[in-house]
């Protein structure tokens, strides 16, 4: 078993599917010779040819819309949007078609399309390169939204996304692309697309997070442990459909919940989780729910991004607040 980074695992998952399923094609801006601006697709064109790993013209609505067309005609297209902040021109095709084709035709046509995009902040990139947009997709009926935060989960979830008979928005936290290495076996084993991951067991408070913020959340849990606060940590990962059962079970045990995400707070996915806890777990809650999120501001340029992102300190504060009540 090889130790590898999250981006290596992404690459390995695509290679695995290209190898084993003729219907799989990888396409997008600069995914060919260049291997993508982050090198997620590196070596794939060389190995599988230009017909299966295709550079496209610069047009995101085209990437999404042609993806719908290819998927409806039996391919398993894996499209790349260069950064999640450039997915918006493709929004209409995703919401009006990818997410609806099966329902619209009562199952006659389907749309097994994956759209991958690097996601989130923290890499000092230029404007529009650091967006956290999961809430916009989680609200759309008919769509799955997935964000892995470790090499193993990246591999297993991407396999699952490509094999999924329905459309999947697959965001990759670019801040974690090369942060750590983990052993990942190229065994072709997919992970389920609708179950959260309990990364750490604990008894006092449940920390619920996903995407790059998992990094700070896990750090906070480790540091809080030293203070005597025992944290259960959940990586939501499969943002939609949302596995509330795992979250409710955990909060039933701990009685406290801190939700952490990078996206703006207002009408974020954190709100949905908090709402569910309030609806179904209210009698378990021993303290008000805490949300530690990005501010309701535009993602700032590099100089200020550290101040925007939920820090380990803010997460720890929130956890401590739940212990006060």
């Amino acid at each position: 078993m090889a130790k590898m980074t999250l981006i290596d695992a992404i690459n390995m998952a695509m290679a695995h599917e290209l190898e084993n399923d003729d219907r799989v094609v990888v396409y997008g801006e600069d995914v060919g010779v260049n291997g993508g601006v982050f090198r997620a697709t590196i070596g794939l064109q060389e190995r599988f040819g230009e017909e299966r790993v295709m550079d496209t013209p610069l047009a995101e609505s085209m990437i999404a819309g042609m993806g719908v067309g290819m998927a409806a005609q039996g391919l398993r297209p894996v499209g790349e949007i260069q950064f999640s902040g450039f997915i918006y021109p493709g929004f209409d095709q995703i919401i009006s078609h990818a997410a609806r084709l099966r329902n619209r035709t009562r199952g006659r046509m389907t749309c097994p399309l994956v759209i991958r995009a690097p996601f989130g902040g923290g890499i000092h990139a230029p404007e529009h390169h650091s967006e956290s947009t999961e809430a916009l997709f989680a609200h759309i009926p008919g769509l799955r939204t997935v964000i892995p935060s470790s090499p193993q989960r990246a591999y297993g979830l991407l396999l699952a996304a490509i094999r999924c008979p329905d459309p999947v928005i697959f965001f990759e936290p670019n801040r974690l692309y090369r942060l750590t290495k983990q052993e990942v076996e190229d065994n072709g084993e997919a992970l389920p697309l609708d179950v959260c991951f309990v990364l750490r067991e604990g008894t006092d408070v449940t920390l619920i997070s996903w995407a790059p913020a998992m990094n700070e959340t896990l750090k906070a849990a480790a540091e809080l442990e030293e203070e005597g606060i025992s944290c259960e940590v959940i990586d939501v990962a499969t943002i939609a459909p949302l596995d509330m059962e795992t979250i409710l079970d955990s909060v039933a045990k701990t009685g406290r919940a801190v939700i952490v995400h990078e996206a703006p707070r207002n009408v974020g996915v954190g709100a949905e989780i908090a709402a569910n806890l309030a609806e179904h777990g209210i009698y378990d809650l021993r303290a008000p729910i805490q949300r530690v999120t990005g501010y309701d501001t535009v993602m700032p340029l590099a100089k200020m991004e550290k101040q925007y992102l939920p820090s380990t300190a803010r997460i720890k504060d929130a956890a401590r607040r739940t212990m006060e009540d």
Partner: protein
Amino acid sequence: MKTVAKFEIGFEQYLDPEGKPTKKLPRTANKEELLKLYRLMTLVRIFDTKAIALQRTGKLGTYASSLGHEAAHAAIGVAMKEKDCLAPMYREYAAQIERGVKMSEILLYWGGDERGSNFSGPAHDFPWCVPIATQYLHAAGAAAAFKYRKEERVAVTVIGDGGTSEGDFYEAINAAGAWQLPFVGVVVNNKWAISVPLEKQTAAETLAQKGVAAGIECVQVDGNDIVAMREVMEKALAKARAGKGPTLIEALTYRLHDHTTADDASRYRSDEEVKAHESKEPLIRLRKYLMEQGWWTEEDEEKLIEECRAEVDEAVSEYQNIEPPGVEDMFDYHFEEITEPLAEQREVAIREARRNG
């Protein structure tokens, strides 16, 4: 200044509005084929009248008429092979009926029932597409799939004059050109986009020339002349099938009815304008030609109309006798396997439906 590129837009016509040949007709314009087309166009026209009547009496939702567009649509239908793929907009009934979609299914869709899009036409044909211009990209994607699998199949798509202002239209033809896809894009220029006339839509003299932007072949055709329309379609399809690249076809026609039954065109265009176009509509000219050839009589006409009426009536009663969908239909087609949260909501909706009888 040196000239570095030159373009010409050709215009194709075989039958003038009087049904007189303007040049020697092509092979496909034989008796059998033309009669088939005339029957199809007549059927669709009678269907159209009936659908409008159903809407007026509350038995159908908003409906988009195809009055005046029959030749353009019929030619698309007959020129395509079953294995080709159609990505329509919302009013190309003649093309769809020719490809096997039932009239009752068309009514079902406009009657507000998704089951209409689970139609009897080729399973690989796209459903009606309301978000303007998006279907052009689906066709480009389908064409890419055909090319990838080395199948001799062509993706055909249709858009209106208004639709050519949308970004998706251009992105699709540009991609079709860049990848030399087996793609045929038809622009049915009926001069109006609801109340917006062509002059306000673009400064381009023709809509065919929009293909120049994509570096693809483009041509304008008299879309009320079924002979020309079919010929141009056949050529474009043959070219695409042979792997020689995409074509953009502008079909000149006119929207004789309101935009949809929810529209009232008298608010924004004159009776005279409509009148002037009535004489150029596609059925008249084909009928004149057929009669001139001695291939068609008044009796044939009456008989055909009766047959078509009966066929349409049958479709209507089929439509009206379809069992209403169960509320679970609203949930069951979002994912191959229903998700946990959706399954819970499905239970709520079923309970609700029971309560309301």
